[in-house]
């Protein structure tokens, strides 16, 4: 559907596919080459990149939220249904699948997390299945649902992204939630003082107070970076993988308008990339889950006291 007659150019097509349906507080002014006029500052749906930039922080990606929460609801309803049906008797195929996933996650958590915390395993399950579902949207042909959204809304420039994990807000939000839980559990386990000690008396420690005073800021700086790198790497790893995958799907989709031969080639490429992506989306969900478990285990580990007391 790209680069044809008065349709969008390839660049416009790609950009359109990478823009979220944004609803936010738009300051008064004229935007989008004069086609959109905002008379008073207020909440509205963005019509172009310029408006999205003008909204800044005070906006929300409606499509990301809809798909993410929708898929999350699908996940909890499916698993809740399975939980209500779960008995010690013979499971049916659906229950068996759910139980297989649960057992797999239970085993992974047991292997990586040796402490007692009833929140870790359910969190790992939520992360794995939810992210898998969100990533799975990547396998749907890129134009199907956005075109449907255009039809339903009647606006030919309606922005609609269906893969929430290609939105850094979504992935970073999960990364930072894990991060804050990690800090919380760390403080719960070691006490506020223990946590402070951990981030200020590491990795350099002399044992003499007049030397330590100079080492504390350096330690704090290094440890803060180590800590902050975790949620950011969690979020950006998932985002980067899915964004790149989505971009390649979109690029392949532009081939369909470039003639029969290239179109067929595009079809083959899309199929191949989708097959490869089945692996990627599962792996990314798994990596996010395993790293979360590892970080949680780290948060629960109490260092040997003698390192700080002598």
């Amino acid at each position, binding site marked *: 559907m790209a680069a044809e007659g008065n349709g969008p150019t390839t660049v416009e097509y790609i950009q359109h596919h990478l823009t979220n349906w944004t609803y936010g507080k738009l300051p008064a002014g004229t935007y989008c080459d004069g086609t959109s006029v905002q008379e008073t500052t207020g909440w509205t749906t963005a019509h172009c990149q310029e408006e999205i930039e003008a909204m800044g922080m005070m906006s929300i990606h409606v499509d990301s939220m809809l798909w993410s929460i929708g898929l999350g609801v699908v996940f909890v309803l499916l698993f809740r249904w399975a939980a209500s049906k*779960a*008995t010690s008797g013979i499971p049916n195929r659906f229950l068996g699948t*759910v139980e297989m996933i649960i057992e797999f996650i239970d085993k992974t958590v047991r292997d990586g997390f040796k402490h007692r915390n009833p929140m870790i395993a359910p969190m790992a399950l939520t992360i794995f299945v939810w992210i898998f579902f969100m990533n799975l949207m990547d396998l749907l042909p890129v134009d199907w649902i956005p075109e449907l959204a255009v039809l339903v809304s009647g606006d030919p420039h309606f922005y609609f992204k269906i893969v929430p994990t290609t939105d850094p807000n*979504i992935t970073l939000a*999960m990364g930072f939630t894990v991060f804050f839980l990690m800090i919380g559990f760390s403080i719960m386990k070691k006490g506020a003082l223990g946590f402070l000690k951990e981030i200020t008396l590491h990795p350099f420690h002399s044992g003499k107070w007049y030397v330590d005073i100079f080492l504390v800021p350096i330690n704090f700086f290094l440890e803060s970076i180590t800590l902050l790198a975790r949620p950011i790497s969690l979020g950006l790893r998932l985002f980067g993988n899915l964004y790149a995958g989505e971009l390649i799907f979109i690029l392949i989709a532009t081939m369909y308008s470039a003639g029969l031969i290239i179109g067929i080639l595009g079809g083959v490429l899309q199929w191949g990339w989708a097959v490869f992506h089945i692996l990627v989306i599962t792996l990314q969900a798994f990596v996010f889950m395993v790293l979360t478990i590892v970080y949680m285990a780290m948060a629960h580990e109490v260092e040997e006291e003698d390192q700080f007391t002598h």
Partner: protein
Amino acid sequence: MNINLTLIGQSIAFIFFVLFCMKFVWPPIVAALAEREKKIADGLLAAERAEKDLELAKHKVSDQLREAKEESAKLIEQANKRAQQIVEEAKQKAIEEADRQKAAAEAEIAQQMNRAREELRGKVATLAIAGAERILQSSVDQQAHGKLVDDLAAQL
């Protein structure tokens, strides 16, 4: 990369789903799995025990069978012995009975012979007297000759 309120919305949604999972999804499924594991373990144990019991019962059955066979063999032997004994006894009895009957018959025969002889003797005496009367054609003194005839008859 537009960082905006979506970040906060997603965080809230994430926490909500984790809590929901922790309350309503994870515990029942894990409990059911643990229960099934226990059930299977119990079942396997029971099966093992049943197998052992079966083995034991088989032994018992074969023992009882052997005992029963021995007893029945003994019984048959006893019965055979008894039967032989009965046949023996019956034979003995039959022989005794036959002997008894033979003796009775012989006694009766002897008695009847005696009686017939007595009768014959009487008849012969009468016949001899009648014959003698005819031969002599004379009246004979019954008294004088009667003694003679009686002597004659006694000699028969």
